[in-house]
């Protein structure tokens, strides 16, 4: 988005509403095929969405709905096939282009930037990040949010919003684009009835204005209510498109499921008589994040399902049972109490957890199938702590055969297996551990139909072997076919329990959905008091640091009155000027989630370069120009290597740092070259006891602070630092933003070098080297989030003054030279620990 007018607002401006012919094709997908290794996600799919209609897309998890919409929105390239939006062909898989053609998508996982405000998110979403746009953004955003009556303050940070509120922000953002085609992916998961009705009103307004809406949902009643036409997708193929009035709910469900239930599932415990008397898992009064006062009892041999609309505490509950989430209350396994909130204790007691996030939590992707199978039961394949590869091979080959895992060998990397086979490896590992309690979260998510059957058999087999099995699933058919008993959760409580013949998909859905209608919303985040919201803001560390600085000054001053002399204060402020520049330099890259270890050596190099030209009889101008060129070059090389080849910024800047260090000692191995007094006298100018250069440094930092909040550069930098993937989805050129951040950082080292060379007066490369640490100390003290996206340059100013003050302390108190090292080290680590704790407290 480099042009002054954002391409998408421009494109939309070109599409006056009266140009759209009612009933004309708004979105046409033809012959879309897309394969992933081992899976055909979409096979020759065609979809035609007309202007002015709500077109529902229904299907099970993994049926290909989201993949299809990823193709439509330019996020994913099809292998074969064509996407036409509003009569114009999508020429490349580019979200930007799709948006330019008038397609807006609201995904289940909103593309929001957690560290930015709601208003900034909306502004970026519609491409209004130029200066005026950002200034007006809060009011404009508030106007878009108020109709939803969700109590969302446009000035609050997205990370402080509840899940429902975030979703509404995402919808508001899409609507603000005035799209020609709006795709809503499971939009009502997080909304209560009133909110759903408000959404439907907005959808009808849109279609009345001849926009098209693609509505993805698995809630059939809702689909019947809102949709004009319905397309059913199953296993990557279209199973038909119908007028909504022509089909009944049960007909739709039949098409969606497409299989006879009883052939797929193994017999339940009641039929097989495999239910034992023993109460294996007992939970009383369990409370935690998003669930309250849960009591449950599961017998040995029993499979119990946890159902409910997503986000009602089910995930947190099952993770708490596995000891991964903290919880209070009581839990017993086999009659013995288990310590809560400890994954080690839960595992020891025999609880085995099968996570839903298979890639992140389930498997060890780079390791082999064999290693993955035995990882939980290493003792079995070892003697005296020493592992036998032969034993691993034997055990894993047996499991590969028994669980019908399709893999070339046990030494294949698990990453090359299909989702279903990876899940079977996870289950094989689980069974090897002989679980007393098996906790499975969405065990068949993203698994093809064939493997699904195997997985059901495995889970039932575990129960028959005596385990108590708890399954969390969003698939009603699966719960009906597999579970002996199902509990339904809503708002963190168990609201219903179904048993025996009552365990049917319809009953589960009814219980989940009727309870949802009871769901009332207490204003999720009550507007925080002014003090609290200030404490959560970027500027609070600055005030705290200022207070610490004053206390420290008072303490040192009482011990040595010379501390308050104008001379000494002037010295502190002078040293602070360098720290403000170098700290700001580091802050810029860190804000974009980078890191630069080369600032110190670059500083030294610039000083050395200056010592050849900025001397008596030399050309000051040439010296300064060379310094700028060197800074630009280093920043560019850093940024280029990091962005172009996606290399680790720490390694790149470490290598560059040491390369620079070598270079500068090559240029000047011993100190030399007296810096001309023409420059030093300017740098040393004071007003009263205050060095002018310090005022300049403060002004620059304030300028950066302003730019960070009010310019596109600043917002995009914070966006990339906050969530790179979301920033990319929003059409921000993240690589360019990162590259520029490294260049800006290096440029900010330039003024630091001018001050440092004036201070030491000679071309010496050594003093500058320690400034890498100084920059990090200042940054950490300023309370900047080292993971990017947050921080303030005002904090940098105060932190720099504090650090300058601390560095002077040993001299005034007559402490040994060791304190010159200890103080910055202890303060850096101490502040990092303190802020990490604060962040944790803020979160909970």
């Amino acid at each position: 988005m480099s042009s002054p007018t954002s391409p998408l607002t421009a494109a939309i401006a070109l599409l006056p509403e009266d140009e759209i012919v009612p009933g004309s094709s708004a979105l046409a997908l033809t012959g879309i095929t897309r394969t992933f290794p081992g899976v055909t996600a979409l096979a020759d799919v065609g979809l035609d969405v007309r202007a002015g209609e709500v077109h529902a897309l229904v299907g099970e998890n993994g049926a290909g709905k989201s993949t299809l919409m990823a193709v439509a929105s330019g996020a994913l390239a099809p292998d074969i096939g064509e996407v036409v939006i509003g009569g114009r062909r999508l020429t490349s898989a580019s979200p930007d282009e799709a948006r330019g053609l008038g397609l807006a998508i609201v995904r289940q996982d909103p593309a929001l930037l957690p560290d930015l405000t709601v208003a900034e998110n909306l502004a970026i979403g519609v491409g209004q990040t130029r200066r005026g746009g950002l200034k007006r953004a809060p009011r404009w955003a508030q106007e878009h949010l108020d109709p939803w009556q969700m109590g969302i303050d446009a000035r609050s940070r997205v990370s402080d919003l509840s899940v429902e509120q975030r979703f509404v922000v995402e919808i508001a953002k899409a609507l603000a684009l005035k799209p020609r085609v709006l795709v809503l992916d499971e939009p009502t998961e997080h909304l209560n009835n009133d909110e759903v009705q408000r959404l439907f009103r907005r959808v009808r307004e849109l279609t009345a204005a001849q926009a098209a809406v693609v509505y993805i949902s698995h809630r059939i009643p809702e689909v019947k209510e809102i949709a004009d036409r319905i397309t059913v997708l199953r296993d990557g193929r279209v199973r038909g498109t119908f007028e909504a009035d022509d089909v009944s709910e049960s007909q739709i469900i039949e098409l969606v499921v497409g299989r006879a239930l009883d052939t797929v599932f193994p017999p339940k415990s009641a039929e097989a008589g495999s239910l034992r008397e023993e109460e294996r898992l007992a939970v009383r009064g369990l409370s935690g994040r998003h669930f309250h006062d849960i009591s449950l009892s599961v017998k040995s041999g029993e499979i119990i399902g946890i159902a409910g609309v997503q986000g009602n505490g089910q995930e947190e509950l099952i993770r708490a049972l596995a000891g991964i989430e903290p919880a209070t209350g009581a839990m017993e396994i086999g009659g013995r109490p288990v310590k809560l909130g400890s994954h080690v204790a839960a595992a020891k007691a025999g609880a085995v957890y099968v996570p839903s996030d298979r890639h992140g939590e389930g498997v060890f992707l780079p390791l082999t199938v064999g290693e993955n199978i035995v990882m939980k039961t290493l003792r079995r394949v070892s003697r005296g702590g020493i592992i036998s590869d032969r034993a691993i091979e034997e055990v894993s080959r047996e499991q590969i055969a028994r669980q019908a895992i399709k893999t070339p060998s046990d030494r294949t990397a698990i990453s090359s297996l299909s989702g279903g086979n990876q899940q079977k490896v996870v289950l094989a590992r689980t069974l090897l551990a002989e679980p007393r309690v098996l906790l499975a979260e969405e065990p068949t998510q993203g698994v093809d139909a064939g493997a699904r059957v195997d997985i059901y058999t495995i889970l039932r087999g575990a129960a028959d072997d005596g385990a108590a099995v708890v399954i969390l699933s969003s698939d009603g058919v699966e719960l009906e076919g597999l579970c002996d008993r199902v509990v339904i959760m809503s708002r963190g409580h168990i609201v219903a329990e179904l048993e025996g013949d009552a365990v049917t998909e319809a009953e589960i859905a009814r219980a989940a959905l009727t309870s949802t209608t009871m769901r009332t919303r207490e204003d999720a985040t009550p507007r925080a008091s002014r003090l609290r919201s200030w404490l959560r803001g970027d500027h609070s560390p600055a005030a705290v640091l200022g207070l610490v600085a004053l206390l420290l000054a008072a303490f040192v001053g009482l011990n040595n009155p010379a501390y308050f002399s104008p001379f000494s204060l002037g010295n502190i402020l002078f040293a602070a000027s360098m720290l403000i520049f170098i700290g700001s330099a580091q802050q810029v890259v860190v804000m974009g989630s980078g890191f630069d270890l080369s600032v110190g050596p670059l500083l030294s190099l610039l000083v050395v370069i200056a010592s050849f030209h900025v001397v008596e009889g030399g050309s000051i101008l040439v010296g300064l120009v060379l310094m700028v060129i060197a800074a630009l070059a280093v920043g560019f090389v850093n940024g280029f290597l990091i962005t172009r080849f996606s290399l680790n910024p720490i390694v790149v800047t470490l290598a560059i740092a040491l390369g620079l260090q070598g270079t500068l000692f090559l240029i000047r191995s011993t100190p030399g070259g007296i810096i001309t007094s023409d420059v030093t006298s300017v740098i040393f100018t004071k007003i009263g006891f205050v060095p002018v250069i310090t005022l300049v440094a403060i002004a620059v930092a304030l300028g950066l602070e302003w730019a960070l909040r009010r310019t596109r550069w600043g917002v995009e930098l914070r966006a990339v630092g906050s969530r790179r993937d979301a920033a990319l989805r929003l059409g921000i050129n993240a690589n360019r933003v990162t590259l520029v951040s490294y260049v800006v950082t290096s440029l900010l080292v330039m003024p630091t070098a001018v001050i440092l060379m004036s201070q030491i007066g000679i071309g010496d490369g050594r003093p500058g080297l320690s400034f890498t640490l100084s920059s990090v100390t200042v940054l950490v003290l300023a309370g900047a989030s080292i993971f990017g996206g947050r921080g303030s340059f005002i904090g940098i100013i105060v932190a720099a003054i504090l650090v300058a003050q601390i560095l002077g302390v040993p001299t005034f108190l007559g402490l040994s030279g060791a304190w010159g090292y200890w103080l910055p080290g202890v303060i850096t680590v101490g502040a990092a620990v303190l802020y990490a704790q604060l962040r944790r407290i803020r979160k909970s």
Partner: protein
Amino acid sequence: MSTVDMKMDPRWKRLLSGGSGAIWIATIALFAASPLVASGSLSEAAVLGMLPFAAVLAIAAIGQTLVVQQRGLDLSVPGMLAFGAALVSGLPQWYGWAPELAIAAAIVLPAIAGLINGVIITRFGVMPLVVTLGMNVILLGTVFAISSGTPAGSPAVLAQFAKGKLGLVPNAVIVAVVVIGVAGFIAHRSIVGRRLTAIGVSERAATALGIRVTLYQTMAYALAGAAYGVASILYTGYVTTPPLFFGDSYLLPTVAAVVLGGTALTGGRAALVSTGVAALFLTQLGQLLRAVGWPEPLQLVAQASVLLAVVLLRELVPSIARAVAERRRLAVAS
């Protein structure tokens, strides 16, 4: 990413993109080329002079590998090495400790410093970079305090051992081989090693399995500290009076050795033995450049370039292979 593994010739892929075989070949090639570049660079005196430094770097790099395996990067290497050296030389000289006690202290105290790193990183969730950077200066300050600013000399026993040879092999090399051997055995063959690998690959997956993630990670940092201690003891014994802050020149080489050895900076499998070989490679490279007459600062530039080149190669080869595989996949699809 998955199809690549199967379609590309596995030997080439492993060699270029992450496996540890490449460094063996590179090292052999370097030694073969050495006499051609500078005659005498492979003479007995030259090799025997180089090996103890390779041993020191290898042991220190083992420590760095353990940290990198846990997705960290240890910037406290300079401080740790200086700390160990100050303990083993300063304690006997300034405080009259027995050499054996000083040697023990020079292993145990850096290990404790590593333990503190680990606890702060795992318990308090602070970024490893910040903690180790801070720990580095704290240790340098401690070195300053122990020595009052003056380097001390190695105890005579230690110097004798470190300069000694068993037959033709310098004792330092034997120590390095034993350290690498034990570390490599633990990493590849023991339950502890496999769990460390698992945690390095995915903390979350390891947590889901009930592995004591924080305990193992903390242990990795402590073991790294102990390795730095051993390296500093050998160095002190060999050079007799090490400069106070000699460790500064070891930070980049340890990282370079890890990367060259094939351990990914994203954590996971640790190629400890290859790290040792890479240390030998880097030391011989330095020796060779010195023999050709390159000044010391240029060595830094050379090391930095080698590191960047290898990191680049490891990134480029798989992505080119991915592109080839994607093209093939599309060809099959249409």
